[in-house]
């Protein structure tokens, strides 16, 4: 039996338009709905596809505030077997990675999968740090993972700028997932939602690891961009098209 761990995070709704976006201190503030990270859902999908072809158990793991547990439960209705929560309000990437790595070791998790980047702070730091802490190989930009020889080795497809690499790996590894049509997240069906209500939710203690002095976070701001706009008349669209083309020529855009 192989243990698969997918690390997930609840993030403020990323569809919130810029006009409704506010900061309090350095973080997004306001009464937003929370959703599962965009890439985390793809990571879950890759984990679930792997589990379906291998005798294995899939843990969804999150270092998170308690109030987001209901959002994170989506992982159970998508198909994860258990949800492990490490309660914390810290979002330091090193504390996050150390705590996730600690749970990964505690639960003997062989295959660790994360989303490429979190959809809020977008630092792309936690996945490689988890790999570094665990001294495992790190594979970013993975779109699918399959098991070879019943879990003795794994084939990972990595999507780079102009090529796909099929990588064979025979040891424990950490992969971060990028989105691709082959890992489009499944939509939980009613049966899975009902089943998820009886699945285990485990709460683990946070550990305060020694602070890693990576950089001092100064201020955050909302960038302001000014553009000159002109609204063209729209009662006769043939005229609008003609006017637009004339203007584009004048401004040397054509």
């Amino acid at each position: 039996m192989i243990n698969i761990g997918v690390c997930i995070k609840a993030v403020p709704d990323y569809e919130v338009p810029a006009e409704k976006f506010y900061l309090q201190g350095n973080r997004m503030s306001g009464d937003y709905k929370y959703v599962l990270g965009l890439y985390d859902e793809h990571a879950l999908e890759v984990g679930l596809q792997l589990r379906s072809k291998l005798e294995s158990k899939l843990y969804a793991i999150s270092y998170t505030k308690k109030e987001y547990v209901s959002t994170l439960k989506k992982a159970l209705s998508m198909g994860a077997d258990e949800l492990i929560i490490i309660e914390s309000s810290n979002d330091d990437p090193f504390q996050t990675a150390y705590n996730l790595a600690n749970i990964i070791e505690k639960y003997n998790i062989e295959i660790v999968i994360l989303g490429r980047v979190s959809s809020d702070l977008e630092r792309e730091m936690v996945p490689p740090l988890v790999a570094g802490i665990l001294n495992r190989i790190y594979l970013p930009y993975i779109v699918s993972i399959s098991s070879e020889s019943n879990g003795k080795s794994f084939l990972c497809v990595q999507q780079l700028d102009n090529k796909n690499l099929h990588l064979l790996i025979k040891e424990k590894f950490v992969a971060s997932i990028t989105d691709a049509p082959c890992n489009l997240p499944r939509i939980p069906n009613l049966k899975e939602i009902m089943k998820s209500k009886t699945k285990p939710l485990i709460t683990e203690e946070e550990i305060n690891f020694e602070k890693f002095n990576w950089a001092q976070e100064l201020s955050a701001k909302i960038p302001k961009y000014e553009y000159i706009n002109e609204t063209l008349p729209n009662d006769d669209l043939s005229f609008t098209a003609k006017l637009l083309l004339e203007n584009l020529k004048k401004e040397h855009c054509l």
Partner: protein
Amino acid sequence: MIIKNVLIISDDDKDRLGELNFVAKKFSDNIDAIVFTNKKELEIDVKKAYGINNIPPNSIETILPLASKYDVILTNGTVGAHIGGILTLKLSASCVFGVSEIKYDEFIFSHSAYGDKAVIDYKPEHLPLVLILKEKYFEQLTTNQLMEIEWLECKKDNIEIVKEEKIEKEVELDKAKIVIGGGRGIGSKEGFAILERIAKLFGGVVGASRAAVDNGWISHQYQIGQSGAMLSASLYFAFGISGATQHLSGIKNVKCVVAINKDEEAPIFKRARYNIVADWKDFAMALINELEETNG
């Protein structure tokens, strides 16, 4: 902080190397590079160029002892994603990931968050420093200097490449001068065929928002934005695109944006030079007629 030397770690893509080389020069003239390549020579302005003919995950042990000799390690792209975090940990370095702007005199590094809706500033407090730069956010240093490569060997291959598939790009969005973009408002694959006609008449190419790609109307290669292409076009048409910040980050360098949307409150209108409040298809047909008439 006094920076004595800088190490660039990159693949051999000319643009990526040029951007790293530009930023490296701002810190020091004492620059070396480790490049993942199979070329014999590289156009790069450094003192020494090391080459690795392998993949980054097999090369960490080779890079580490060398990297430990430098004050600043600069990387970007997929190579940065592979090695940045591990180097930070193993070298107990300070770091900033996804750097989009640098205030060199203040030693402040900016990173955009929340889909480009906010920018956060970081100040590293000690060296060595690992910086992962966002691509296409920095100027490129161009040089005619051809550097010979000193090859580095990887001790052991932990990963075997069993297959390599070239992705044939149908379109080079980042280089196109005119791009006709379509979003969820287009509503179908057939709608994109109309945009294709406009692109042909302009001598441009079609692009899309993530929503259009997710709906399967066009392939991912055509996606513009944070997780797609970054345009450098002089003209961009946004048909039925709302203007989410993740989309806008891909058109940040476009000179002139024309937005066509039936919702006069759509955020794209704030970014556009010309706003047309209309049904996209009605305007697209009018534009096609006009272009066909003028093109004869």
